């Protein structure tokens, strides 16, 4: 069984982004870019399934600019067998990415597609579910545990108020939550090995997908600032402030 894993190149999670002064977006020139953390978990899970012998091949896919090749190399250093880049300089929204992935699913026929639950840049949380819908596949989002047996996967999901376990027939889509696994550190030998792995490049046109954005960003603003309040010297003062100034208790 093949597994397809989608990886997105995003601003590194340690970078605090700044809004551009013309309010056209956030400034991502010269900031560190990395693989979306949830996608790293997705790659790790796919590689673990391969190590367990459940999966034969792990294919990493990224959609976006040429530099996404670096993100794919990272995925291959974690253990993905090969990479596919759908290269375009256009702004890609989740629906477009889901359509590109759907075209690759048709081509590669994977048993599972694993994606991060959301990207930490646009915070959309859409692509996996959209791909599942487009491919008429069942979905298990926000996964914290995955077990594959036969043609079914049992997935524990993080939901409001606790955990839920569902069983899905493959082919299926899984999106990862934070506690599914802890991605391994990539080693230098594996980084070197990843450089030699196969990486194919397509254009959206090659896959017959129209990626035109549906949603236009009119402006991007700084959020309203919350200013620091005061420091209180002791618990008694704190209680007094809460009771008599803030009146919240």
């Amino acid at each position, binding site marked *: 069984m093949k597994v397809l894993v989608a990886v997105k190149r995003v601003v590194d999670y340690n970078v*605090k*982004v700044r*809004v551009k002064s013309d309010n056209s977006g*956030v400034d991502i020139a010269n900031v560190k870019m990395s693989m979306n953390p949830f996608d790293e978990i997705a790659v790790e899970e796919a590689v673990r399934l391969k190590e367990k012998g459940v999966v034969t091949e792990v294919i990493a896919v990224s959609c976006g600019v040429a530099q996404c090749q670096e993100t794919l190399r990272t995925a291959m250093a974690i253990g993905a067998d090969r990479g596919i880049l759908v290269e375009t300089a256009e702004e890609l*929204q*989740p*629906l477009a990415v889901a359509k590109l992935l759907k075209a690759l699913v048709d081509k590669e026929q994977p048993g599972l597609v694993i994606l991060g639950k959301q990207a*930490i*840049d*646009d*915070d*959309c*949380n*859409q692509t*996996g*579910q*959209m*791909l599942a*819908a*487009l491919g008429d*596949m*069942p*979905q298990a*989002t926000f996964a914290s545990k995955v077990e594959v047996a036969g043609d079914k996967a049992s997935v524990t999901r*993080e939901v*409001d*108020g*606790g955990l*839920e*376990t*569902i069983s*899905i*027939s493959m082919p299926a889509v899984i999106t990862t*939550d*934070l506690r599914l696994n802890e991605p391994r550190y990539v080693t230098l030998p594996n980084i070197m090995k990843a450089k030699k792995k196969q990486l194919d490049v397509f254009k959206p046109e090659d896959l017959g997908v129209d990626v035109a954005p*549906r*949603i*236009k*960003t*009119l*402006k*991007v*603003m*700084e*959020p309203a600032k*919350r200013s*620091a*309040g*005061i*420091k*209180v010297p*002791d*618990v*008694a003062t*704190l*209680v007094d*402030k*809460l009771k008599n100034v*803030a009146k919240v*208790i």
Partner: protein
Amino acid sequence: MTSLVIAEHDNASIKGATLNTVTAAAAIGADVHVLVAGHNAGAAAAAAAQIAGVSKVIHADGASLEVGLAENVAAQVLAIASNYTHILFPATANGKNVAPRVAAKLDVGQISDITKVDSPDTFERPIYAGNAIATVQSSDAVKVITVRTTGFDAAASTGGSATVETAAAATDSGKSSFVGREVTKSDRPELTAAKIIVSGGRALGSSEKFDEVMIPLADKLGAAIGASRAAVDAGYAANDLQVGQTGKIVAPQLYVACGISGAIQHLAGMKDSKVIVAINKDPEAPIFSVADFGLEADLFVAVPELVAAL
């Protein structure tokens, strides 16, 4: 122009998140209908009909809808979607699970996590963990939206008198099935609906200490308990208690952060709280930059003292 709100419910009652979503739908300016898709959910449908501002409730009832499997709920929404210009889900685990399936089948983009309605096609939503607010405009015929519930007040749960219409339940997709659920049992208020939240961080050091220190404070204040991602990752607290960008987004009247340093991703989940108290022994902790009242102290001393003083 008519909006459809997909109700969050447990078949017996309507969850609070539905009420905030109704307010967002009303802000669009259209008629508001509510879909209650469930099993033996008559009581929930009746409760939905009482929500102020709702003109019609569509009640679809069947075993396929009992546990809210995404495939079946999405099919249910799609069966009636052609009647609507806007389809709104609360941005809960359920809403986020189903909404993109509906959008993709309709071939429209989705607008996630809106915090404000500017016009029927223009919305505001946080990006980069709330470090920027984007104003976005959709050119699609149908707007599929998830609503960040802290961005909108709750609609009154009584006072409405909507008609209740029944709809045939969607057939089961046959591709997914429910196995089980581990619900965290608690007498405390639900995290996203609580007026007061006391939250613990990595400084608690262990799950025993977490409970020992945080529970008495929560009991005293009648508060819900939250946790930072660090505390959850370390196993001190259950994962559904996580407050932050990738956990729960909360905005209570009072948020008490104990031993939480205040990473960006945590602040993204709680900075809209009305009053924030931070108890931390590190004077440089970023949490103090958003706290209304900061107490620089060892939480193992200060929190029990606070419990005693309340």
